[in-house]
Protein backbone atom coordinates (compact mmCIF):
# COMPACT_ATOMS: atom_id res chain seq x y z
CA UNK A 1 0.00 0.00 0.00
CA UNK A 2 1.15 3.54 -0.56
CA UNK A 3 2.43 5.24 2.54
CA UNK A 4 1.98 8.96 2.73
CA UNK A 5 3.96 11.48 4.68
CA UNK A 6 2.67 14.98 5.10
CA UNK A 7 5.74 16.34 3.37
CA UNK A 8 3.95 15.29 0.25
CA UNK A 9 6.24 12.60 -0.98
CA UNK A 10 4.49 9.35 -1.69
CA UNK A 11 6.40 6.14 -1.54
CA UNK A 12 4.96 3.11 -3.14
CA UNK A 13 5.66 0.12 -0.99
CA UNK A 14 6.79 -2.61 -3.29
CA UNK A 15 4.66 -5.21 -1.55
CA UNK A 16 1.15 -4.68 -2.80
CA UNK A 17 -1.05 -4.83 0.26
CA UNK A 18 -4.76 -4.65 0.76
CA UNK A 19 -4.77 -0.89 0.43
CA UNK A 20 -4.78 1.22 -2.67
CA UNK A 21 -7.67 1.64 -5.05
CA UNK A 22 -8.54 -1.07 -7.48
CA UNK A 23 -9.39 0.37 -10.89
CA UNK A 24 -13.13 0.57 -11.22
CA UNK A 25 -14.71 -2.66 -12.21
CA UNK A 26 -11.45 -4.30 -13.16
CA UNK A 27 -9.22 -6.48 -11.07
CA UNK A 28 -6.21 -4.68 -9.67
CA UNK A 29 -3.17 -5.10 -11.86
CA UNK A 30 -1.18 -7.77 -10.09
CA UNK A 31 2.05 -9.50 -10.66
CA UNK A 32 4.22 -6.82 -12.16
CA UNK A 33 4.52 -5.08 -8.83
CA UNK A 34 5.82 -8.04 -6.96
CA UNK A 35 9.49 -8.72 -7.33
CA UNK A 36 9.51 -7.53 -10.95
CA UNK A 37 12.40 -5.62 -12.46
CA UNK A 38 12.59 -2.07 -11.20
CA UNK A 39 12.30 0.69 -13.83
CA UNK A 40 15.74 1.55 -15.21
CA UNK A 41 17.94 3.57 -12.96
CA UNK A 42 15.88 3.21 -9.80
CA UNK A 43 16.01 0.49 -7.18
CA UNK A 44 13.63 -0.13 -4.36
CA UNK A 45 11.21 2.63 -3.65
CA UNK A 46 10.72 5.44 -6.15
CA UNK A 47 9.26 8.50 -4.52
CA UNK A 48 6.46 10.45 -6.17
CA UNK A 49 5.47 14.07 -5.57
CA UNK A 50 1.76 14.62 -6.16
CA UNK A 51 0.68 18.11 -7.22
CA UNK A 52 -2.88 19.30 -6.63
CA UNK A 53 -4.40 22.58 -7.81
CA UNK A 54 -8.03 23.57 -7.38
CA UNK A 55 -10.46 25.68 -9.40
CA UNK A 56 -13.43 26.62 -7.29
CA UNK A 57 -16.68 28.17 -8.48
CA UNK A 58 -18.75 29.83 -5.77
CA UNK A 59 -22.25 31.04 -6.58
CA UNK A 60 -22.68 34.60 -5.42
CA UNK A 61 -25.41 35.12 -2.86
CA UNK A 62 -27.55 37.82 -4.48
CA UNK A 63 -31.19 38.46 -5.29
CA UNK A 64 -30.71 38.76 -9.02
CA UNK A 65 -28.24 37.49 -11.58
CA UNK A 66 -24.87 38.89 -12.59
CA UNK A 67 -25.92 40.64 -15.80
CA UNK A 68 -29.72 40.55 -15.65
CA UNK A 69 -32.61 41.20 -13.29
CA UNK A 70 -34.01 37.69 -13.09
CA UNK A 71 -34.08 36.01 -9.72
CA UNK A 72 -31.43 33.71 -8.26
CA UNK A 73 -33.59 30.90 -6.96
CA UNK A 74 -32.64 27.29 -6.32
CA UNK A 75 -35.16 24.64 -7.41
CA UNK A 76 -37.60 27.06 -9.03
CA UNK A 77 -39.98 25.61 -11.65
CA UNK A 78 -38.03 25.05 -14.89
CA UNK A 79 -37.33 28.17 -16.93
CA UNK A 80 -39.38 30.37 -14.60
CA UNK A 81 -36.55 32.67 -13.44
CA UNK A 82 -35.10 33.36 -16.85
CA UNK A 83 -34.95 36.76 -18.53
CA UNK A 84 -34.67 37.42 -22.26
CA UNK A 85 -30.96 38.13 -21.78
CA UNK A 86 -30.41 34.82 -19.98
CA UNK A 87 -32.06 33.05 -22.90
CA UNK A 88 -29.75 34.97 -25.23
CA UNK A 89 -32.54 36.46 -27.27
CA UNK A 90 -31.32 39.02 -29.80
CA UNK A 91 -31.39 42.66 -28.76
CA UNK A 92 -30.53 42.06 -25.10
CA UNK A 93 -27.48 43.47 -23.33
CA UNK A 94 -25.65 42.68 -20.07
CA UNK A 95 -26.01 45.12 -17.15
CA UNK A 96 -23.78 44.31 -14.21
CA UNK A 97 -25.18 43.77 -10.71
CA UNK A 98 -23.46 45.97 -8.09
CA UNK A 99 -23.98 43.41 -5.32
CA UNK A 100 -21.98 40.81 -7.29
CA UNK A 101 -19.08 43.22 -7.63
CA UNK A 102 -19.15 43.89 -3.88
CA UNK A 103 -19.23 40.16 -3.11
CA UNK A 104 -16.13 39.62 -5.26
CA UNK A 105 -14.31 42.53 -3.59
CA UNK A 106 -15.14 41.22 -0.10
CA UNK A 107 -13.89 37.77 -1.01
CA UNK A 108 -10.73 39.16 -2.57
CA UNK A 109 -9.98 41.21 0.55
CA UNK A 110 -10.56 38.21 2.82
CA UNK A 111 -8.10 36.21 0.71
CA UNK A 112 -5.43 38.93 0.86
CA UNK A 113 -5.57 39.58 -2.87
CA UNK A 114 -4.40 42.59 -4.85
CA UNK A 115 -7.50 44.13 -6.27
CA UNK A 116 -7.36 45.28 -9.88
CA UNK A 117 -9.01 48.67 -9.79
CA UNK A 118 -9.59 48.28 -13.50
CA UNK A 119 -10.70 44.84 -14.65
CA UNK A 120 -12.13 43.66 -17.97
CA UNK A 121 -14.75 41.24 -19.25
CA UNK A 122 -14.24 38.69 -22.00
CA UNK A 123 -16.22 36.11 -23.93
CA UNK A 124 -15.25 32.45 -23.66
CA UNK A 125 -16.79 30.52 -26.57
CA UNK A 126 -17.92 26.91 -26.60
CA UNK A 127 -21.00 25.09 -27.80
CA UNK A 128 -23.34 23.44 -25.33
CA UNK A 129 -27.11 23.31 -25.06
CA UNK A 130 -27.15 24.97 -21.63
CA UNK A 131 -25.13 27.95 -22.89
CA UNK A 132 -27.61 29.61 -25.25
CA UNK A 133 -25.32 32.48 -26.22
CA UNK A 134 -22.54 30.11 -27.30
CA UNK A 135 -20.18 31.98 -24.99
CA UNK A 136 -19.77 32.72 -21.29
CA UNK A 137 -18.93 36.23 -20.09
CA UNK A 138 -15.89 35.90 -17.83
CA UNK A 139 -12.71 37.77 -16.92
CA UNK A 140 -9.78 36.15 -18.64
CA UNK A 141 -7.36 39.00 -19.40
CA UNK A 142 -7.61 41.14 -16.29
CA UNK A 143 -9.65 39.61 -13.47
CA UNK A 144 -10.97 41.57 -10.49
CA UNK A 145 -8.29 40.25 -8.10
CA UNK A 146 -4.95 38.40 -8.16
CA UNK A 147 -2.20 37.06 -5.91
CA UNK A 148 -3.87 36.15 -2.66
CA UNK A 149 -3.38 33.51 0.02
CA UNK A 150 -5.58 31.12 1.94
CA UNK A 151 -4.39 29.69 5.24
CA UNK A 152 -5.84 26.47 6.52
CA UNK A 153 -5.01 23.93 9.22
CA UNK A 154 -4.51 20.20 9.33
CA UNK A 155 -4.28 17.74 12.19
CA UNK A 156 -0.92 16.10 11.77
CA UNK A 157 -1.81 13.18 13.97
CA UNK A 158 -5.15 12.18 15.44
CA UNK A 159 -3.55 11.10 18.69
CA UNK A 160 -1.27 14.03 19.21
CA UNK A 161 -3.89 16.59 18.23
CA UNK A 162 -1.23 18.83 16.77
CA UNK A 163 -2.41 21.36 14.27
CA UNK A 164 -0.25 22.57 11.43
CA UNK A 165 -0.98 25.71 9.40
CA UNK A 166 -0.55 25.61 5.65
CA UNK A 167 -1.04 28.20 2.94
CA UNK A 168 -2.15 27.92 -0.62
CA UNK A 169 -1.63 30.78 -3.04
CA UNK A 170 -4.64 32.22 -4.82
CA UNK A 171 -3.78 32.92 -8.43
CA UNK A 172 -6.85 35.01 -9.15
CA UNK A 173 -10.53 35.64 -8.52
CA UNK A 174 -12.80 36.42 -11.45
CA UNK A 175 -16.46 37.22 -11.97
CA UNK A 176 -18.30 35.08 -14.49
CA UNK A 177 -21.70 33.72 -15.51
CA UNK A 178 -23.03 30.34 -14.54
CA UNK A 179 -24.55 28.17 -17.28
CA UNK A 180 -27.96 26.55 -17.34
CA UNK A 181 -28.59 22.96 -16.31
CA UNK A 182 -28.76 19.93 -18.56
CA UNK A 183 -30.79 16.89 -17.61
CA UNK A 184 -29.71 13.92 -19.67
CA UNK A 185 -32.50 11.60 -20.73
CA UNK A 186 -30.63 8.66 -22.17
CA UNK A 187 -33.73 6.55 -22.76
CA UNK A 188 -35.18 9.09 -25.16
CA UNK A 189 -31.76 10.18 -26.38
CA UNK A 190 -32.31 13.82 -25.55
CA UNK A 191 -31.25 16.50 -23.11
CA UNK A 192 -33.69 18.69 -21.22
CA UNK A 193 -32.44 22.21 -20.64
CA UNK A 194 -33.39 24.48 -17.74
CA UNK A 195 -31.97 28.01 -17.93
CA UNK A 196 -32.86 29.05 -14.38
CA UNK A 197 -29.21 28.91 -13.41
CA UNK A 198 -27.97 30.59 -16.60
CA UNK A 199 -26.47 33.94 -15.79
CA UNK A 200 -26.21 33.50 -12.01
CA UNK A 201 -23.06 35.25 -10.76
CA UNK A 202 -20.03 33.12 -9.94
CA UNK A 203 -16.72 33.92 -8.31
CA UNK A 204 -14.06 31.62 -9.70
CA UNK A 205 -11.21 31.20 -7.23
CA UNK A 206 -8.14 29.74 -8.89
CA UNK A 207 -5.59 28.21 -6.54
CA UNK A 208 -1.97 27.54 -7.40
CA UNK A 209 -0.94 23.86 -7.29
CA UNK A 210 0.50 24.11 -3.77
CA UNK A 211 -1.27 21.11 -2.32
CA UNK A 212 -0.17 17.50 -2.30
CA UNK A 213 -3.05 15.30 -1.21
CA UNK A 214 -6.79 14.92 -0.68
CA UNK A 215 -6.62 15.95 2.96
CA UNK A 216 -4.99 19.28 2.14
CA UNK A 217 -7.44 19.97 -0.67
CA UNK A 218 -10.39 19.19 1.60
CA UNK A 219 -9.09 21.36 4.43
CA UNK A 220 -8.42 24.28 2.10
CA UNK A 221 -11.89 24.09 0.57
CA UNK A 222 -13.52 23.77 3.98
CA UNK A 223 -11.75 26.92 5.17
CA UNK A 224 -12.74 28.78 1.98
CA UNK A 225 -16.31 27.64 2.52
CA UNK A 226 -16.31 29.00 6.08
CA UNK A 227 -14.83 32.30 4.90
CA UNK A 228 -17.44 32.71 2.16
CA UNK A 229 -20.24 31.89 4.58
CA UNK A 230 -18.87 34.34 7.16
CA UNK A 231 -18.64 37.10 4.55
CA UNK A 232 -22.05 36.21 3.17
CA UNK A 233 -20.70 36.51 -0.37
CA UNK A 234 -21.76 32.92 -1.04
CA UNK A 235 -23.78 30.37 0.92
CA UNK A 236 -21.26 27.86 -0.45
CA UNK A 237 -23.48 24.82 0.10
CA UNK A 238 -21.90 22.12 -2.08
CA UNK A 239 -25.01 19.98 -2.10
CA UNK A 240 -26.95 22.80 -3.78
CA UNK A 241 -24.25 23.43 -6.32
CA UNK A 242 -23.29 26.76 -4.75
CA UNK A 243 -19.70 25.60 -4.37
CA UNK A 244 -18.16 23.49 -7.14
CA UNK A 245 -14.63 22.22 -7.10
CA UNK A 246 -12.52 20.92 -9.96
CA UNK A 247 -9.19 19.34 -9.05
CA UNK A 248 -6.09 19.35 -11.27
CA UNK A 249 -3.84 16.43 -10.35
CA UNK A 250 -0.42 15.30 -11.52
CA UNK A 251 2.57 13.39 -10.13
CA UNK A 252 6.29 13.60 -10.79
CA UNK A 253 9.59 12.46 -9.31
CA UNK A 254 11.40 14.99 -7.13
CA UNK A 255 13.70 17.17 -9.18
CA UNK A 256 11.94 16.34 -12.43
CA UNK A 257 9.46 18.59 -14.26
CA UNK A 258 5.76 18.39 -13.40
CA UNK A 259 3.88 15.48 -14.90
CA UNK A 260 0.87 15.60 -17.22
CA UNK A 261 -2.18 16.68 -15.28
CA UNK A 262 -5.76 15.51 -15.39
CA UNK A 263 -8.78 17.52 -14.40
CA UNK A 264 -11.28 15.86 -12.08
CA UNK A 265 -14.87 17.13 -12.08
CA UNK A 266 -18.22 16.14 -10.61
CA UNK A 267 -17.09 16.26 -6.98
CA UNK A 268 -20.14 16.83 -4.81
CA UNK A 269 -18.83 17.06 -1.27
CA UNK A 270 -15.68 17.85 0.65
CA UNK A 271 -15.36 14.23 1.68
CA UNK A 272 -15.53 13.13 -1.96
CA UNK A 273 -12.99 15.79 -2.88
CA UNK A 274 -10.40 14.13 -0.63
CA UNK A 275 -11.28 10.69 -2.00
CA UNK A 276 -11.24 11.82 -5.63
CA UNK A 277 -7.86 13.52 -5.32
CA UNK A 278 -6.26 10.62 -3.47
CA UNK A 279 -7.71 8.10 -5.93
CA UNK A 280 -6.43 10.06 -8.92
CA UNK A 281 -2.94 10.36 -7.40
CA UNK A 282 -2.85 6.61 -6.83
CA UNK A 283 -4.21 5.88 -10.28
CA UNK A 284 -1.58 8.03 -11.95
CA UNK A 285 1.22 6.44 -9.93
CA UNK A 286 0.00 2.97 -10.86
CA UNK A 287 -0.26 3.85 -14.55
CA UNK A 288 3.21 5.38 -14.61
CA UNK A 289 4.82 2.59 -12.65
CA UNK A 290 3.35 0.09 -15.04
CA UNK A 291 5.00 1.91 -17.92
CA UNK A 292 1.92 3.79 -19.09
CA UNK A 293 1.42 7.49 -19.75
CA UNK A 294 -1.08 9.95 -18.33
CA UNK A 295 -3.46 11.60 -20.80
CA UNK A 296 -4.20 15.30 -20.39
CA UNK A 297 -7.90 14.60 -20.03
CA UNK A 298 -10.94 15.51 -17.98
CA UNK A 299 -12.22 12.81 -15.65
CA UNK A 300 -15.36 12.57 -13.56
CA UNK A 301 -15.45 11.28 -10.01
CA UNK A 302 -17.86 8.40 -9.54
CA UNK A 303 -18.84 8.61 -5.89
CA UNK A 304 -20.55 5.23 -5.92
CA UNK A 305 -17.48 3.35 -7.08
CA UNK A 306 -15.01 5.74 -5.46
CA UNK A 307 -12.94 6.23 -8.59
CA UNK A 308 -12.39 8.60 -11.51
CA UNK A 309 -13.49 7.79 -15.06
CA UNK A 310 -12.84 9.57 -18.36
CA UNK A 311 -15.61 12.07 -19.07
CA UNK A 312 -17.66 11.82 -22.21
CA UNK A 313 -18.14 14.80 -24.48
CA UNK A 314 -14.72 16.24 -23.81
CA UNK A 315 -13.15 15.56 -27.17
CA UNK A 316 -9.80 17.15 -27.83
CA UNK A 317 -8.48 20.44 -26.62
CA UNK A 318 -10.99 23.26 -26.62
CA UNK A 319 -10.27 26.52 -28.39
CA UNK A 320 -12.26 29.07 -26.45
CA UNK A 321 -11.49 31.94 -28.82
CA UNK A 322 -11.37 34.52 -26.02
CA UNK A 323 -12.34 38.00 -27.15
CA UNK A 324 -13.13 41.18 -25.21
CA UNK A 325 -16.81 41.56 -24.29
CA UNK A 326 -17.70 44.50 -26.52
CA UNK A 327 -20.83 45.46 -24.58
CA UNK A 328 -19.16 46.10 -21.24
CA UNK A 329 -16.73 48.93 -20.45
CA UNK A 330 -13.97 48.21 -17.90
CA UNK A 331 -15.05 47.71 -14.30
CA UNK A 332 -13.53 50.50 -12.21
CA UNK A 333 -13.23 50.19 -8.44
CA UNK A 334 -12.33 53.06 -6.15
CA UNK A 335 -10.77 53.54 -2.78
CA UNK A 336 -10.81 56.49 -0.43
CA UNK A 337 -7.94 58.12 -2.30
CA UNK A 338 -9.13 57.69 -5.85
CA UNK A 339 -12.78 58.44 -5.15
CA UNK A 340 -13.77 61.37 -7.38
CA UNK A 341 -15.71 64.20 -5.75
CA UNK A 342 -19.43 64.61 -6.37
CA UNK A 343 -20.04 61.01 -7.41
CA UNK A 344 -23.31 59.16 -7.22
CA UNK A 345 -22.67 56.67 -4.41
CA UNK A 346 -24.84 54.09 -6.07
CA UNK A 347 -22.49 54.04 -9.05
CA UNK A 348 -19.33 53.61 -6.99
CA UNK A 349 -17.80 50.55 -5.37
CA UNK A 350 -15.36 51.71 -2.69
CA UNK A 351 -12.83 49.06 -1.68
CA UNK A 352 -11.92 50.82 1.58
CA UNK A 353 -15.56 51.15 2.60
CA UNK A 354 -15.99 47.41 2.09
CA UNK A 355 -12.73 46.64 3.91
CA UNK A 356 -13.88 48.56 7.00
CA UNK A 357 -17.07 46.55 7.15
CA UNK A 358 -15.60 43.05 6.78
CA UNK A 359 -16.74 40.74 9.59
CA UNK A 360 -14.26 38.74 11.70
CA UNK A 361 -12.89 35.93 9.53
CA UNK A 362 -12.88 32.35 10.88
CA UNK A 363 -9.19 32.53 11.81
CA UNK A 364 -9.81 35.68 13.86
CA UNK A 365 -12.91 34.19 15.47
CA UNK A 366 -10.92 31.11 16.48
CA UNK A 367 -8.11 33.15 17.96
CA UNK A 368 -10.61 35.19 19.97
CA UNK A 369 -12.27 32.02 21.28
CA UNK A 370 -8.94 30.58 22.34
CA UNK A 371 -7.97 33.79 24.09
CA UNK A 372 -11.29 34.53 25.71
CA UNK A 373 -12.14 31.05 26.91
CA UNK A 374 -8.69 29.48 27.32
CA UNK A 375 -9.58 26.54 25.09
CA UNK A 376 -7.21 24.72 22.75
CA UNK A 377 -6.82 25.77 19.09
CA UNK A 378 -8.19 22.45 17.87
CA UNK A 379 -11.29 23.06 20.03
CA UNK A 380 -11.87 26.35 18.28
CA UNK A 381 -11.71 24.55 14.93
CA UNK A 382 -14.41 22.12 15.96
CA UNK A 383 -16.57 24.94 17.33
CA UNK A 384 -16.49 26.80 14.02
CA UNK A 385 -16.82 23.67 11.97
CA UNK A 386 -20.28 22.76 13.30
CA UNK A 387 -23.02 25.17 12.40
CA UNK A 388 -24.36 26.79 15.58
CA UNK A 389 -21.91 25.12 17.95
CA UNK A 390 -20.02 28.27 18.91
CA UNK A 391 -23.27 29.97 19.81
CA UNK A 392 -24.35 26.97 21.87
CA UNK A 393 -21.03 26.89 23.71
CA UNK A 394 -21.08 30.61 24.45
CA UNK A 395 -24.66 30.38 25.71
CA UNK A 396 -23.75 27.59 28.12
CA UNK A 397 -20.72 29.53 29.35
CA UNK A 398 -22.90 32.57 29.94
CA UNK A 399 -25.30 30.63 32.14
CA UNK A 400 -22.90 28.59 34.23
CA UNK A 401 -20.12 29.21 36.69
CA UNK A 402 -18.14 26.29 35.35
CA UNK A 403 -14.91 27.34 33.69
CA UNK A 404 -15.18 27.49 29.88
CA UNK A 405 -12.24 25.14 29.52
CA UNK A 406 -14.19 22.55 31.46
CA UNK A 407 -17.42 23.30 29.62
CA UNK A 408 -15.74 22.69 26.28
CA UNK A 409 -15.19 19.05 27.21
CA UNK A 410 -18.91 18.55 27.68
CA UNK A 411 -19.66 20.32 24.42
CA UNK A 412 -17.16 18.41 22.30
CA UNK A 413 -17.18 15.01 23.94
CA UNK A 414 -20.72 14.58 25.16
CA UNK A 415 -22.92 16.90 23.13
CA UNK A 416 -21.22 16.72 19.76
CA UNK A 417 -20.58 12.99 19.76
CA UNK A 418 -24.25 12.35 20.54
CA UNK A 419 -25.38 14.70 17.76
CA UNK A 420 -22.99 13.08 15.30
CA UNK A 421 -24.11 9.57 16.24
CA UNK A 422 -27.71 10.53 15.56
CA UNK A 423 -26.96 12.74 12.56
CA UNK A 424 -28.47 15.78 14.23
CA UNK A 425 -27.49 19.38 13.76
CA UNK A 426 -26.85 21.61 16.76
CA UNK A 427 -30.17 23.34 16.07
CA UNK A 428 -31.94 19.97 16.30
CA UNK A 429 -30.39 19.09 19.67
CA UNK A 430 -32.98 17.79 22.15
CA UNK A 431 -30.78 19.25 24.90
CA UNK A 432 -30.73 23.05 24.76
CA UNK A 433 -27.86 25.23 25.93
CA UNK A 434 -29.80 26.39 29.01
CA UNK A 435 -30.59 22.81 30.06
CA UNK A 436 -26.95 21.82 29.69
CA UNK A 437 -25.96 24.91 31.68
CA UNK A 438 -28.35 23.86 34.47
CA UNK A 439 -26.78 20.41 34.54
CA UNK A 440 -23.25 21.77 34.63
CA UNK A 441 -24.23 24.08 37.46
CA UNK A 442 -25.33 21.10 39.55
CA UNK A 443 -21.98 19.52 38.85
CA UNK A 444 -20.08 22.71 39.60
CA UNK A 445 -21.85 23.14 42.92
CA UNK A 446 -20.85 19.59 43.72
CA UNK A 447 -24.46 18.53 44.12
CA UNK A 448 -23.78 15.60 41.79
CA UNK A 449 -20.69 13.76 40.61
CA UNK A 450 -19.55 13.86 37.01
CA UNK A 451 -20.57 10.21 36.60
CA UNK A 452 -24.02 11.14 37.76
CA UNK A 453 -24.03 14.11 35.40
CA UNK A 454 -23.38 11.79 32.48
CA UNK A 455 -26.27 9.60 33.60
CA UNK A 456 -28.54 12.64 33.73
CA UNK A 457 -27.43 13.58 30.25
CA UNK A 458 -28.42 10.18 28.95
CA UNK A 459 -31.92 10.83 30.33
CA UNK A 460 -31.98 14.37 28.92
CA UNK A 461 -31.27 13.09 25.42
CA UNK A 462 -34.66 11.42 25.49
CA UNK A 463 -36.09 14.93 25.30
CA UNK A 464 -38.97 14.16 27.67
CA UNK A 465 -38.98 17.71 28.98
CA UNK A 466 -37.64 16.92 32.46
CA UNK A 467 -35.14 19.33 33.96
CA UNK A 468 -31.75 18.08 35.18
CA UNK A 469 -32.80 18.67 38.78
CA UNK A 470 -35.93 16.60 38.29
CA UNK A 471 -33.93 13.70 36.89
CA UNK A 472 -31.40 13.90 39.72
CA UNK A 473 -34.17 13.73 42.29
CA UNK A 474 -35.98 10.97 40.44
CA UNK A 475 -32.92 8.79 40.19
CA UNK A 476 -31.55 9.81 43.56
CA UNK A 477 -28.22 10.86 42.10
CA UNK A 478 -27.49 13.60 44.63
CA UNK A 479 -24.11 13.48 46.31
CA UNK A 480 -24.42 12.85 49.97
CA UNK A 481 -23.19 15.96 51.76
CA UNK A 482 -23.85 14.79 55.32
CA UNK A 483 -20.49 13.91 56.95
CA UNK A 484 -22.04 11.61 59.56
CA UNK A 485 -24.05 9.66 57.02
CA UNK A 486 -20.91 9.16 54.92
CA UNK A 487 -18.97 7.88 57.95
CA UNK A 488 -21.71 5.40 58.71
CA UNK A 489 -21.65 4.04 55.18
CA UNK A 490 -17.87 3.70 55.17
CA UNK A 491 -17.92 1.95 58.55
CA UNK A 492 -20.59 -0.46 57.33
CA UNK A 493 -18.46 -1.39 54.32
CA UNK A 494 -15.36 -1.89 56.45
CA UNK A 495 -17.33 -3.97 58.98
CA UNK A 496 -18.71 -6.15 56.23
CA UNK A 497 -15.27 -6.95 54.86
CA UNK A 498 -13.29 -7.76 57.97
CA UNK A 499 -11.13 -10.25 56.15
CA UNK A 500 -10.14 -7.82 53.42
CA UNK A 501 -9.42 -4.88 55.65
CA UNK A 502 -6.15 -4.93 57.48
CA UNK A 503 -6.32 -2.75 60.59
Amino acid sequence: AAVRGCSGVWRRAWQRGAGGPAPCGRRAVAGSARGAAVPAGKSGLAPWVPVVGLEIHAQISSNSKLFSGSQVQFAAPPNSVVSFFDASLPGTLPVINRRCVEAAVMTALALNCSINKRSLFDRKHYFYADLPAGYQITQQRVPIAVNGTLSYSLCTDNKMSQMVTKTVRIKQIQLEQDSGKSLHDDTRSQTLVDLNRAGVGLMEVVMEPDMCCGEEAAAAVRELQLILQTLGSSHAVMAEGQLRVDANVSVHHPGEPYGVRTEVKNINSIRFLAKAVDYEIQRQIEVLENGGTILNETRAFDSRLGCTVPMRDKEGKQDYRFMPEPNLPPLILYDAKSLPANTNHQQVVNIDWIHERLPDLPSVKRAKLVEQYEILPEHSFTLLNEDGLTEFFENVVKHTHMKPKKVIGWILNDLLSYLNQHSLTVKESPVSSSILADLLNLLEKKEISSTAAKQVLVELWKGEGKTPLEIVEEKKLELIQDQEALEQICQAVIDGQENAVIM
Partner: protein
Amino acid sequence: QKVTVDVLDHLERLALVDFRDSEGVERLQKAIQFADQLHEVNTDGVEPMDSVLEDRCLYLREDDVTEGNCTKELLKNAREKVEEYFVAPPGNIPLPKLEERETYLQSS
Protein backbone atom coordinates in the same frame (compact mmCIF):
# COMPACT_ATOMS: atom_id res chain seq x y z
CA GLN B 1 0.59 32.61 -47.09
CA LYS B 2 -2.18 30.20 -47.90
CA VAL B 3 -4.50 29.02 -45.15
CA THR B 4 -3.61 25.40 -44.43
CA VAL B 5 -6.04 22.50 -44.50
CA ASP B 6 -5.47 21.97 -40.80
CA VAL B 7 -6.58 25.49 -40.03
CA LEU B 8 -9.61 25.17 -42.28
CA ASP B 9 -10.55 21.93 -40.56
CA HIS B 10 -10.09 23.62 -37.18
CA LEU B 11 -12.29 26.54 -38.26
CA GLU B 12 -15.03 24.27 -39.61
CA ARG B 13 -15.05 22.41 -36.31
CA LEU B 14 -15.04 25.49 -34.09
CA ALA B 15 -17.34 27.81 -35.90
CA LEU B 16 -19.48 25.15 -37.56
CA VAL B 17 -19.02 26.82 -40.91
CA ASP B 18 -18.64 24.88 -44.11
CA PHE B 19 -16.03 25.96 -46.64
CA ARG B 20 -17.95 24.08 -49.24
CA ASP B 21 -15.78 24.76 -52.25
CA SER B 22 -12.65 26.56 -53.45
CA GLU B 23 -14.68 29.76 -53.80
CA GLY B 24 -15.45 29.70 -50.09
CA VAL B 25 -11.80 29.20 -49.20
CA GLU B 26 -10.76 31.92 -51.64
CA ARG B 27 -13.18 34.32 -50.01
CA LEU B 28 -11.61 33.53 -46.66
CA GLN B 29 -8.11 34.14 -48.05
CA LYS B 30 -9.19 37.50 -49.44
CA ALA B 31 -10.76 38.49 -46.13
CA ILE B 32 -7.52 37.67 -44.29
CA GLN B 33 -5.51 39.64 -46.83
CA PHE B 34 -7.81 42.59 -46.38
CA ALA B 35 -7.45 42.48 -42.59
CA ASP B 36 -3.66 42.05 -42.84
CA GLN B 37 -3.44 45.66 -44.01
CA LEU B 38 -3.71 46.56 -40.34
CA HIS B 39 -0.13 45.33 -39.88
CA GLU B 40 1.08 48.29 -41.96
CA VAL B 41 0.24 50.66 -39.10
CA ASN B 42 3.02 51.29 -36.58
CA THR B 43 1.50 50.74 -33.16
CA ASP B 44 4.69 50.94 -31.09
CA GLY B 45 3.90 52.41 -27.69
CA VAL B 46 0.16 52.59 -28.33
CA GLU B 47 -2.17 50.76 -25.93
CA PRO B 48 -4.57 48.46 -27.81
CA MET B 49 -8.19 49.54 -27.78
CA ASP B 50 -10.71 46.76 -27.70
CA SER B 51 -13.84 48.83 -27.19
CA VAL B 52 -14.92 52.37 -27.96
CA LEU B 53 -16.58 52.20 -24.55
CA GLU B 54 -13.21 52.09 -22.81
CA ASP B 55 -13.61 55.44 -21.11
CA ARG B 56 -17.27 55.07 -20.34
CA CYS B 57 -18.45 54.11 -16.88
CA LEU B 58 -19.76 50.61 -16.39
CA TYR B 59 -23.27 51.16 -15.12
CA LEU B 60 -23.96 49.29 -11.85
CA ARG B 61 -27.46 47.95 -11.41
CA GLU B 62 -29.16 47.60 -8.00
CA ASP B 63 -29.64 44.00 -6.89
CA ASP B 64 -33.42 43.92 -7.42
CA VAL B 65 -35.48 41.24 -9.15
CA THR B 66 -37.05 42.96 -12.14
CA GLU B 67 -37.32 40.23 -14.78
CA GLY B 68 -38.18 36.60 -15.29
CA ASN B 69 -41.46 34.77 -14.92
CA CYS B 70 -41.97 34.49 -18.64
CA THR B 71 -41.70 30.74 -19.17
CA LYS B 72 -44.53 30.61 -21.70
CA GLU B 73 -43.05 33.34 -23.87
CA LEU B 74 -39.60 31.79 -23.85
CA LEU B 75 -40.87 28.36 -24.72
CA LYS B 76 -42.72 29.77 -27.72
CA ASN B 77 -39.34 29.74 -29.46
CA ALA B 78 -38.74 26.09 -28.74
CA ARG B 79 -39.30 23.61 -31.53
CA GLU B 80 -39.65 20.86 -28.96
CA LYS B 81 -40.41 21.07 -25.29
CA VAL B 82 -41.04 18.62 -22.47
CA GLU B 83 -42.86 19.97 -19.40
CA GLU B 84 -41.37 23.46 -19.69
CA TYR B 85 -37.87 22.24 -20.43
CA PHE B 86 -36.17 23.01 -23.72
CA VAL B 87 -35.26 19.85 -25.59
CA ALA B 88 -31.81 19.43 -27.07
CA PRO B 89 -29.87 16.54 -28.61
CA PRO B 90 -28.19 14.21 -26.08
CA GLY B 91 -24.82 15.95 -26.28
CA ASN B 92 -22.70 17.87 -28.68
CA ILE B 93 -22.95 15.96 -31.92
CA PRO B 94 -19.30 15.65 -32.84
CA LEU B 95 -18.33 16.84 -36.29
CA PRO B 96 -17.24 13.83 -38.34
CA LYS B 97 -13.52 13.54 -38.97
CA LEU B 98 -12.15 15.29 -42.04
CA GLU B 99 -11.99 12.04 -44.03
CA GLU B 100 -15.66 11.39 -43.41
CA ARG B 101 -16.94 14.82 -44.33
CA GLU B 102 -18.25 15.77 -47.73
CA THR B 103 -16.15 18.83 -47.95
CA TYR B 104 -13.96 20.53 -50.47
CA LEU B 105 -11.11 20.18 -48.05
CA GLN B 106 -10.89 16.49 -48.90
CA SER B 107 -9.40 17.24 -52.24
CA SER B 108 -6.86 19.76 -51.02
